[in-house]
């Protein structure tokens, strides 16, 4: 477990527990929880709230043959395997979407050695991996919606401090930030946004249509 200094806000954990987040945010929350027992315990408490809501519901009428049909379904299904302890850079929810660990990502260069890979985008929100060479700045940007950035490898620094593996930064549209990858290891982040990123500065603005951000 990495020592996490920047935690996820409660409203996102409750949103994930209730199942109302866009897919891109679900992916970031599930990946962060995989790396943080603090987030796992907080999420579990919001799920306990869901369990209490379920317990208090009045029973709906079920079909007469409901149990028999369920038992028939059981016969056709394989038991769920036990989870394997994971090794590598990406926790399992992210590995499922990528189709492998960090070496399986299909990167696209976005200039100055930085790369990205869009993982899912459904009109509501987009999740992407970003790769920033050590010591290099991400293009200065602001955004209209919310942005969640989870560090998976290396670290970055911005106005709010240093973010390392497992740390998460949640920024709203007011934040106008300039993250810089720390020296040492190249930085890989999982980023979800629910509005288009707005880059400032000439080069990134030219690159923006190609980034599809």
């Amino acid at each position, binding site marked *: 477990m990495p020592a996490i200094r920047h935690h996820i806000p409660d409203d996102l954990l409750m949103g994930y527990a209730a199942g109302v987040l866009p897919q891109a945010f*679900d992916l970031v929350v599930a990946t962060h929880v*995989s790396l943080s027992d603090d987030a796992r315990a907080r999420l579990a408490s919001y799920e*306990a709230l869901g369990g209490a*809501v379920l317990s208090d519901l009045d029973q709906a009428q079920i079909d007469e043959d409901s149990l028999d049909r369920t038992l028939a379904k059981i016969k056709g299904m394989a038991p769920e395997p036990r*989870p394997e302890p994971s090794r590598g850079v990406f926790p399992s929810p992210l590995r499922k979407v990528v189709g492998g660990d960090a070496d399986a990502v299909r990167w696209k260069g976005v200039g100055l050695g930085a790369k990205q890979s869009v993982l899912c985008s459904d009109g509501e929100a987009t999740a992407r991996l970003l790769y920033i060479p050590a010591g290099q700045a991400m293009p200065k940007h602001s955004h209209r919606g919310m942005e969640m950035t989870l560090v998976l490898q290396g670290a970055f620094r911005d106005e709010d401090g240093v973010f390392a593996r497992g740390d998460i930064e949640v920024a709203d549209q007011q934040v106008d930030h300039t993250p810089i990858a720390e020296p040492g290891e190249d930085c890989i982040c999982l980023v979800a946004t629910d509005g288009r990123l707005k880059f400032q500065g000439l080069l990134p603005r030219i690159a923006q249509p190609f980034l599809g951000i």
Partner: protein
Amino acid sequence: MEKTEAHWVATIAAIAQNQDQKAFAEVFRHFAPKVKAFLIKSGADVSLAEECMQDVMATLWHKAHLYDPSRASVATWIFTIARNRKIDLLRRYARPEPEDLPWGPEDAPDQADVIALQQESTKLAEAIRKLPAKQRELIERAYFGDLTHSEIAAETGLPLGTIKSRIRLALERLRHAMN
């Protein structure tokens, strides 16, 4: 008579260890109608809710050996299965789930943790019943998916502190046992 949390935990264990169909039928009679009600409240029509509920209960059978009673009550565990199945069906994508801890029968959860979690779950359910009607309704709407994520403000007044600390302790013991 209302069955205790300890009873349901033992019932899931009987399914996991002995593929006990009688135990399953009992869990089914109690929880299947609630799962179906949850799915209907979440916007599924009656026939989709029935189909989806059967999937949820079949998944419960196949995941029974992965249920950890030191981290969730049976109702909470069933809620998470139902929520995931609902998202798979209504939103047509496989919901990303956190990596689970690879605990096995050899490092079974501490009995004291299991009992403490059962007590906290019962207390939480009581505390929620005592909330003002408006706040309760807001929580229910959130879990039925009636609120968007921007409408879910951090609910600071919720009595979740103790259950969270309990789960945190159980996780620490589990991590310790794994090392």
